[in-house]
């Protein structure tokens, strides 16, 4: 597919009209207008409930202490 596309491109730039267009054209001019719109990230994961958070904290403390002991 890439080879085929390159052939097409090579052939196309032989077309004076297109070659002129290409040399005279700044592609930045074709970029979409700047009109910012906020798109906040959505929440998709639940925060653990307090009991589970407490258990998690306890486990991480234990792991740290075990690490020290090791």
């Amino acid at each position, binding site marked *: 597919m890439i080879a085929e596309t390159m052939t097409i491109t090579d052939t*196309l730039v*032989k077309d004076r009209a297109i070659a002129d267009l290409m040399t005279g054209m700044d592609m930045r001019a074709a970029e979409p207008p700047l009109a910012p*719109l906020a798109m906040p990230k959505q929440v998709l994961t639940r925060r653990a409930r307090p009991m589970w958070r407490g258990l998690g904290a306890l486990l991480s403390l234990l792991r740290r202490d075990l690490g020290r002991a090791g």
Partner: protein
Amino acid sequence: MTALAAALPPGPKDRTTRARAFAITFSVLAAAAAGMVFHIYGAADGITVVDMIRAGLIVFSTWWLAWGAATAMLGLIARQRPVRAEVQGEIRGRTVVIVPVYNEEPAVTFARIAAMDDSLRATGNGAQVDFAILSDTRDEAIAAAERVWCARLLARQHGAGRIFYRRRVQNTGRKAGNIEEFIVASGRAWDYAVILDADSLMEGTTILTMIRRMEADPKLGLLQTLPRVIGARSMFGRAMQFAASFHSPVFAHGLAAMQGRTGPFWGHNAIVRIRAWAESCGLPELPGPPPFGGHILSHDYVEAALLSRAGWVVRLDDDLDGSFEEGPENIIDHAKRDRRWCQGNLQHAKVIGAPGLKGWSRFVFFQGIFAYIAPLIWLGFIAASVMASATAIGPDYFPLENWPFPVFPYDQTAKAVGLALGIFGLLVMPKLMVVLDAVASGRAAGFGGAWASFRAMLSELLLSSLIAPILLAFQSRSVVQVLMGSDGGWPPNNRGDGGLDFADAWAAGRWISGWGIVGLGVAHVFAPELTLWLLPVALPMLLAPVLIWWTSRPVRPGRFPVPEDRGLPAIVAGHEAVLAEWSRDLAQADVA
């Protein structure tokens, strides 16, 4: 049918509730009946753990089949739907048609934009409809070609200020990230965005109708069309095109009835209200590494769920014509796309519990996950059946002490045959009903008449049954890969005629042949009485490379007739005309 149709009242909310209740009741009852019959049949020689596992597996797989059948039935009975409201007169909103591209062939893709722009202008409507090509192309050669063809497109369409092109430096978040970056940078310039794929085509009148429907309902956040598959040439592609053209409208109609205002988004050939999209659809990265963490792959389902969560209506308007896409031309391309969908759907396991989602959205995620678990359930059932047969103890004809006469076990053949017929019926019945409906409604005429439709349906049924074990093998491998933590990445889509060399087919399918030989060998050694029953699954697996190669060959169009054979839709003809025009110009440039 009439009784069921009467059970569906015209009120949209009631209609949706009743449709859902019908589908759930039908599928659960069918699953329960299958489970009970199997339990009785399996318990005839004493119940074992394997029998209980098999009964459980048959319940789940029957439920899945019955769910499909229920969707088709709903599609056939929920016909009397009010015409969608549309504003008449001048369109006020500004619309941008977004075309994300990723290593696509630029000439073919940009010719589609030229054709759609021509089609819009031919309507004579002065509505502002711009185009934005959003390139995520990583290949520099293709990116250079994109710039050349963009210049060509702008020159042909006099598109400066109406047709835009930008290429991202990094393709963060893949297609969803591409669109998000565009909305964040430029979203305020438009009110609506028609989201397309690189291979999508839409008639100008269809785009305008979609905008009118958005303007008529300020709560409508997303409107999805049912795209028709076009341009298939191979046996596999034409069969899929026929199925999409003949069966899908009925299934989509059932789906629309069931989903109601919590409809689907399939990632393309849809229009969104940009404000709703920006407010609701900013996708975060999921915690953890891929395949379950990271960027959301099947983003479309999540975006539909998030729009619904925010109170926007998401609707499938299956009555809209003039919306087209292309499909994979061979089993390998289908399997590649399916690998991506598999990972994306299984990733929804992390999203299904997201706070505030509507119950139906969660159920849709569940269905998406189940679609990929179902092949493993069938495989599990086959394996358990071989095990049950291998470990079965023969009947005891003299179970009673001091009783000289034999006691014969009850004959359970009728139950076994009934169960097999029931499951086969769930598979075939929806397609048969669609044929009958097409003949009765006159729709079959577009497919060459009643007999041609029936013949094509049988051919498609035969072909899909033949390749089902191969697709099952690919799907099962995908699920295992994802569960083992393998990330499939984001391979670009292959377009073109899709013809495969036998060497490619052999490389892609030999492992399936290997598993087929192993499976058949194990069954022959441990459960020889099942060998014959397993042949419909094992033989296509053994012949996988041949079938993959054979189905990628061109086929006579009459084998799977579609309405497009009798006359190309205007937009498809327009696309071909632009491509022909550009090819002529190239030839002249070459001569010069």
